[in-house]
């Protein structure tokens, strides 16, 4: 059983988040407001164009990427999730009380993941089409 502070204490800790949010909004809005009040306002066409890191905005906001990259996205997600499990495992598998069983267990997991790669390879997903 944990140290328990009651509901008021529990939800009360969220009040800090709310206050921080309000302060953030006030600073943001205040800065824009003061800027507007103090600056001279003489717009030209060049000044009104969207500012994009010093580069002239070209083309649409709608950009498409090659659909064939989705495979690499998938593979990346698979291995990224893999790594999430691998890192904590790597810190403990050599510790006393773990040893060979733990080592083998992770390779069982990796074998299941590898199954997907083998399948993708056989289905010619990995070749650049």
């Amino acid at each position, binding site marked *: *059983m*944990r140290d*328990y502070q*009651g*509901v*008021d204490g*529990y939800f009360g800790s969220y009040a800090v988040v709310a206050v921080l949010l309000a302060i953030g909004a006030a600073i943001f809005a205040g800065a824009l407001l003061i800027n507007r009040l103090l600056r001279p306002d003489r717009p030209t066409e060049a000044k009104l164009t969207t500012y994009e890191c010093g580069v002239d905005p070209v083309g649409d906001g709608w950009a498409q990427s090659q659909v064939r990259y989705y495979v690499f996205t998938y593979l990346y997600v698979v291995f990224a999730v893999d790594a999430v499990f691998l890192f904590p495992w790597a810190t403990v598998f050599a510790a006393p*009380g*773990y*040893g060979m*069983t*733990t080592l083998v267990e992770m390779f069982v997991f990796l074998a*299941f993941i590898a*199954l997907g790669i*083998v*399948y993708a390879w*056989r*289905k010619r997903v990995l070749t650049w089409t």
Partner: protein
Amino acid sequence: MIQSIDYWAIAAPLILALAAGLVLLLEAFLPARPGVRTALGCLTLAALAAAFAVVVAQRGVRETFCVPSVGCSYVVDATTVVFAGLALGAGAVVVLLSMGQLAEGDIPVGEWYFLLLAALAGAVTLPASRDLIMLVVALELVSLPVFALTALRRYDGRGAEAALKLFVVSVVSTAVMLFGISLLYGITGAVHLDAIAAALAQPERPGAGPVVAVGAVMVVAGFGFKIAAVPFHFWAADVYQGAPIPVAALLSVVSKAAGFAGLILVLTQALPGESATWTPIVAVLAALTMTVGNVLALRQTHPVRLLAWSSVAQSGYVLAPIATTDAQAATAYLVFYAAMNLTAFAVVMAVPHDTLDGYRGLVSARPVAGLALAFALICLAGLPPGLAGLFAKVVVFREVVAGGLGWLAVVMAVNTVIGLYYYIAWTARLFTPADATRRAGSGPAWIAVGVATAVAVGFSVAPQLVLATLG
């Protein structure tokens, strides 16, 4: 510290998982011929049969993945065996139904059976899970493959829409449930269901009541999405209609049973002390679910949509005994419901039509299919020739009345009468003479019709098979 594993206890999901990998590899390395498709189907059936044999052979209580002095994560007992048997039996029928679908060749067979076996492995693991993490992982293992199965037919707009709807609903429900679970964990500091119950039973918890109540409601809501209980039912008809029929059958039986198993486990094992909070909620959900499901089913003309709303209504009947904290009656109802609903889906797969009127004269044109469908519908309605449905309803009524929820029993009785209308209207069409030409499905679908009908008839003749196993 390494946990010792009782491989006999986890044999059933293990067999399914290994078979899933094997099917995937075989499809990748064997030539794509019709013979291979059938062989993979048979391999899947063999794996299901092996897992079923293991489940039947598992006597007594077996525990594994235990943490000393906290509890075990995986426990096989009588209720687990019934749920696992239900999932595997239903899985076999779904495989038989899908063999016809796969013969058309526009669905990758290995992936289909792999996903199916993965979902079934989850459905077998879930009723044995005894900690919240295992429960969520198992539930996701049931849910995730079903999205892919729904969308596996390429260039099918309706299928893709159904899959997207199912995906969004499922992800939202998981998020809601995970939030509820995190609240329960935050209050009790435990994930094992027994440990949660023990922690909540301790008196000195100032102000914990509201948080536990919110957690319990969110967990119920999360499972409510999975079992399509009102007000989380909107997705049911569109998804069932858009998905291939075998997947609709899987959703309406295996997924639903898994959702109920999880709901029952969390409510009766982790939150028995909080029953004053959740019994009224479950009772109201049950009443709403059966009423809305039945009323929406009244005006359907598409057979699968009708079955979808009917399955929503049936969820209400399963929820009713849970409101009296009785898991046995709910489980029994689910088993009977699975047999009769699968029979209906099997016939709809074997003789597909887009409207109920397409089934006019089915009894004279194809007596086997016609009579099987008529029997299934009468069972679902709960009328005398379909004794399985009648026994199921009687069991539930008895528990609800004994539990002191008289008003819920009245709502159930009214709903049974509403249900009669659309079940009987469809049954009557089967017997009206018509001279329409008949399209018919493939051989395995007929085997599925035979198996499902045989089980439904078996339950009608000997309902004690189920009732005795549950004890």
